[in-house]
């Protein structure tokens, strides 16, 4: 394998489910192709039902594709593996185990030959990393939603996977908690150079965390319609990020996609000239060329605008 070879390669992935009415199978998504390089943080966003979670589950090995292949590190993904850590939206902690036991369970799964102290020390290191030192002997039911999700993060990082898969990890948290944990995640990912594939509905979360944002069109027959290169420089600070020149072009582009363009791709489905490879949006190019192209490419519905202002206020 050469260094140029992508770390994760997804080829022509499709998933169909039997129709509930007994007719033709329903294809949720097809022609999904993308690559993720080592150390890259990739966010996926799109409307509900476009198959984001199914793609994540296929990458995790928990679900199987109808057609297509996934290769990681040159090997085909067939079934779940310790090489890919998963952070579930529902945190999926075992309620009969303490925080330490939950993380230790994962550590012991990864390194079965380790003795008790080694497992404990390793687990504690990751519990400290997510700021839960002192709560290690608590049961999940004694923790807040944010703390539970931190345990989930500690557990996923503790097995030192080659890749991390996150399915809307902060979707169930309040905005304040979400912000704090996002900052922690940013810090941990910078330290560990972790390769991440993350599903999110939160445009700001995607901009803060990712190197690349994949936008999915609406299902059925969803596909990756656009890929946005997140050119904001690192390290990123939540408080200063909106002052970056590329921030608003990226943000507007993402919101426009979700509000209007994601549907248009749906109309193209089945058409012979439907795009099978996504367009790449690079804000650097956009700013260099001209700003006058923007109003043309951005037919914002009136309802969308005040919402965006509210978010930015």
């Amino acid at each position: 394998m050469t260094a140029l070879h992508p770390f994760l390669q997804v080829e022509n992935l499709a998933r169909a489910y039997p129709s509930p009415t007994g007719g033709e199978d329903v294809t949720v998504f097809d022609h999904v192709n993308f690559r993720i390089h080592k150390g890259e943080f990739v966010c996926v966003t799109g409307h509900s039902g476009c198959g984001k979670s199914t793609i994540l589950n296929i990458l995790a090995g928990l679900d199987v594709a109808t057609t297509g292949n996934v290769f990681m590190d040159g090997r085909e993904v067939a079934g779940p593996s310790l090489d890919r850590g998963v952070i579930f939206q529902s945190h999926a902690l075992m309620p009969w185990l303490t925080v330490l036991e939950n993380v230790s369970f994962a550590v012991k799964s990864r390194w079965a030959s380790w003795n008790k102290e080694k497992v404990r020390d390793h687990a504690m290191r990751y519990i400290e990393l997510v700021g839960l030192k002192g709560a290690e002997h608590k049961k999940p039911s004694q923790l807040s939603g944010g703390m539970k999700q931190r345990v989930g993060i500690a557990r996923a990082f503790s097995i030192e996977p080659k890749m991390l898969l996150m399915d809307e990890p902060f979707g169930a948290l309040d905005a304040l908690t979400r912000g704090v944990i996002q900052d922690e995640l940013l810090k941990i990912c910078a330290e560990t150079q972790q390769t991440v594939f993350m599903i999110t509905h939160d445009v700001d979360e995607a901009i803060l965390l990712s190197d690349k944002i994949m936008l999915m069109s609406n299902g059925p027959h969803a596909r990756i319609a656009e890929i946005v290169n997140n050119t904001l420089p690192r390290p990123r600070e939540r408080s200063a990020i909106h002052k970056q020149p590329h921030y608003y072009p990226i943000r507007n582009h993402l919101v426009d996609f979700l509000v209007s363009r994601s549907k248009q791709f749906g109309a193209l489905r089945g058409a012979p000239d439907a795009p099978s490879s996504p367009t790449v949006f690079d804000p650097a190019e956009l700013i260099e060329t001209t700003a006058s192209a923007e109003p043309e490419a951005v037919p914002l519905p009136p309802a969308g605008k005040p919402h965006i202002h509210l978010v930015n206020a």
Partner: protein
Amino acid sequence: MKMKLSLSQKAGLLSLGLFAAILLVWQLATLPEARVVAADVDPEYAALMGGGSASSASSFPTPAAMAQTVWDKLSDPFYDNGPNDKGIGIQLAYSIARVLAGFFLAAAVAIPLGFAIGNSRVFYQALNPYVQLLKPISPLAWMPLALYTIKDASASAIFVIFICSLWPMLINTAHGVANVRRDWLDVSRTLEVNPLRLAFRVILPAAAPTILTGMRISMGIAWLVIVAAEMLVGGTGIGYFVWNEWNNLSITNVLFAIFMIGVVGMALDSLFGVLSKRVAYQE
């Protein structure tokens, strides 16, 4: 001045009041009746009918006589004067031993089998008709078959306990195992947890509350059934004791046995209550 009573104090007072009321009714009901002997009745006939004496002592004891019996029996529970006269402790010990033997044999079969049924839809569908057919059969209906094949009265009683304990544990185990949250299984799959570790570290603790509920129901049924089974097989045990005392027309002893069956049943149930608490988890 008004006294503030806590909930449990109020309940305790009410319980005591109820106990006093029961004693009162009992006392009144067992008061010796003064019988007026009709003049035209032959005195010999009256004497035969039990009316000759000034008062007729009913076989049903007064609360005081009952209390005396309870005290006497409990102060010497383990005496053994041959087959028809053993202390209540010995009789209960026989019954408890049979129940525990049958119960744990059933658990040894039902829990692994329940695991298999809960884990596999094929197993579930294949075994379901048998379970549905066998479950409603009264455990005592098996008794003749057991006596014929096993040819041992005590072992037959254990078999009957085994059969009646089997179904609740089997069904609850299967149900608990089949309903382990998908998330926990998915986490385990991504951690490549081997099947044995998955069974003991994830599925068993996840299903433990449901399994224990099944065990508790089984134990309750087993304790109900042992009395009837021992009435049939005879020899030893609390069921035999009840029937023997009925044949002796000792209502006092029958009442005492009924009381002790209740006490032991309650103790067994609260034991499982404690165990349930220990395996319970809060999501």
